[in-house]
């Protein structure tokens, strides 16, 4: 798209765009290229000298069992959170779409968790399911489960999935509701006249018409779980017990900060960048075309 009318002059627009360009170059392109460059270097223990080692950082990364474990953890974590938060949000949105009295109030009461910081969401759920003082761990222990997210990796992962899902439902809910409200009522009425009941209408008419929204949200949710859940993991488990809840992003942080392995951490950053770019590209390429009605 282009504007027909323009304002003449070169210097003014260059001045206008300068602040954003400067900030983008200094705080985005420079560090991003540093990350790529560093991933080919190895620093000595004191960070005084570094030598070019080619793809060695990448090679040693793929020899670490911990790296594969972080990949598997990330895959499990993101698919569980994406599935549950999309499913719950769709259920709630399809109910809220039913022209109920007080619909606006329902919407308000469901969207506010978006504003809660991931780390705070983690702390809230940790408090609720704390092994010794959590209000909800008592009923769990009462049925005979030795609930302890600090020691048991499955329990820790459950807690992370619950808090990350809780935080993401409101976002998905808003987009599903908007998607549902954009479906023409005439299509649904036509299906009803043809004798389709509410469930049949949902699966054969509404759900397929909603597929662009669902696909868009799927990509956004995966990116969310990759990056924004850092605060939840750090606050609830710190990657533990025994590194069992360390995701790819958490490992970038932990290896660089705690381990001091900047080359390895940079190599992991580069791999993450490639994953995110691939995800974004998929979103741009397919979201409008493939998922069609």
């Amino acid at each position: 798209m282009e504007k027909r009318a323009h304002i003449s002059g070169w210097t003014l627009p260059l001045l206008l765009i300068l602040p954003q360009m400067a900030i983008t170059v200094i705080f985005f392109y420079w560090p991003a290229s540093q990350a790529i460059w560093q991933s080919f270097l190895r620093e000595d223990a004191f960070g005084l000298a570094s030598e070019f080692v080619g793809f060695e950082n990448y090679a040693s990364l793929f020899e670490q069992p911990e790296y594969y474990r972080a990949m598997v953890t990330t895959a499990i974590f993101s698919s569980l959170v994406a599935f549950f938060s999309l499913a719950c949000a769709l259920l709630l949105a399809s109910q809220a779409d039913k022209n109920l009295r007080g619909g606006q109030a329902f919407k308000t009461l469901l969207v506010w968790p978006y504003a809660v910081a991931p780390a705070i969401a983690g702390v809230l759920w940790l408090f609720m399911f704390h092994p010794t003082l959590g209000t909800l761990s008592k009923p769990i222990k009462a049925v005979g489960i030795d609930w302890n997210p600090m020691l048991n990796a499955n329990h820790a992962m459950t807690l992370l999935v619950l808090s990350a899902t809780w935080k993401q439902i409101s976002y998905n809910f808003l987009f599903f509701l908007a998607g549902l409200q954009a479906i023409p009522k005439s299509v649904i009425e036509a299906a009803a006249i043809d004798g389709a009941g509410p469930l049949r209408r949902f699966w054969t008419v509404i759900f397929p018409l909603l597929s662009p929204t669902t696909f868009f949200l799927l990509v956004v949710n995966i990116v969310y779980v990759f990056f924004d859940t850092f605060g939840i993991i750090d606050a609830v488990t710190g990657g533990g017990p025994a590194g069992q809840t360390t995701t790819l992003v958490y490992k970038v942080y932990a290896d660089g900060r705690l381990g001091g392995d900047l080359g390895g951490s940079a190599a992991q950053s580069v791999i993450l960048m490639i994953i995110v770019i691939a995800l974004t590209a998929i979103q741009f390429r397919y979201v409008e075309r493939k998922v069609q009605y």
Partner: protein
Amino acid sequence: MVENRPFAQFMAYLTLAIGILVVAFPVYLAVMASTFDTATIINGNMPLVPGDQAAENYNRTLLYGGMHARQPVGGMMFNSMIMALGIAIGKILISILSAYAVVYFKFPFRKTAFWVIFITLMLPVEVRIYPTYKIVADLGLLDTYTGLVMPLIASATGTLLFRQFFMTIPDELLEASKIDGAGAFRFFKDTLLPLSMTTIAALFVIQFIYGWNQYLWPLLITTKSSMQTIVIGIKMMITTTDALTEWNVAMTTAVLAMLPPVLVVILMQRLFVKGLVETEK
């Protein structure tokens, strides 16, 4: 609804009510915990109705900060507020100017400039965290508000949002103001800015929440406790051994940390929804 089914209607209300309860329960517990003393919480039998320690807890947390925080939570909230406002206002400023340049002017490398900004959409700060840290350290910006804010406003969302909005403004407005003899500055100030107010407000709401809730970046670049934000402050309170954690202070802090962004969402819901839907396009 296509057909009138009282039962389906009832189920819809029931599902929504359960959803709202599940969503609200963790926060309800935190609010309750902020009204008891540590001992009541530690023994695991915290009642689900408010206790009588609220005034004491909020007072102590805001002004003193408890055993493990090294500064009062009031100070942390001040830092968070500066950071959130800095990010929101900074991003609006730089992106409205660059969008104005990209949409309304023809200059060499305009397309290139747009793409250079656009690419930043793809990479969140988490993937370039250590190199960014090093640059901020080299510039001497550790433990400063500038260091907290700058790297986080280097992104394209605002520019894209304003570009999209400027594209919907009819060309006739620019032509008319040209005929009236207005220059680039007058057109921006008298025509574009008043028309953009809703977009600016929507972007402000989204960026305020984004800034307030930042975690990894402030965690890395603040070393002085006086520069800590509230979202990382709460972590310091609960990482110590369980027996020593002052859960009442931690939960009071959690409530205080949620309050500003949640209020923004509830009070400015229309703008919030607009901002959310449009920045994600």
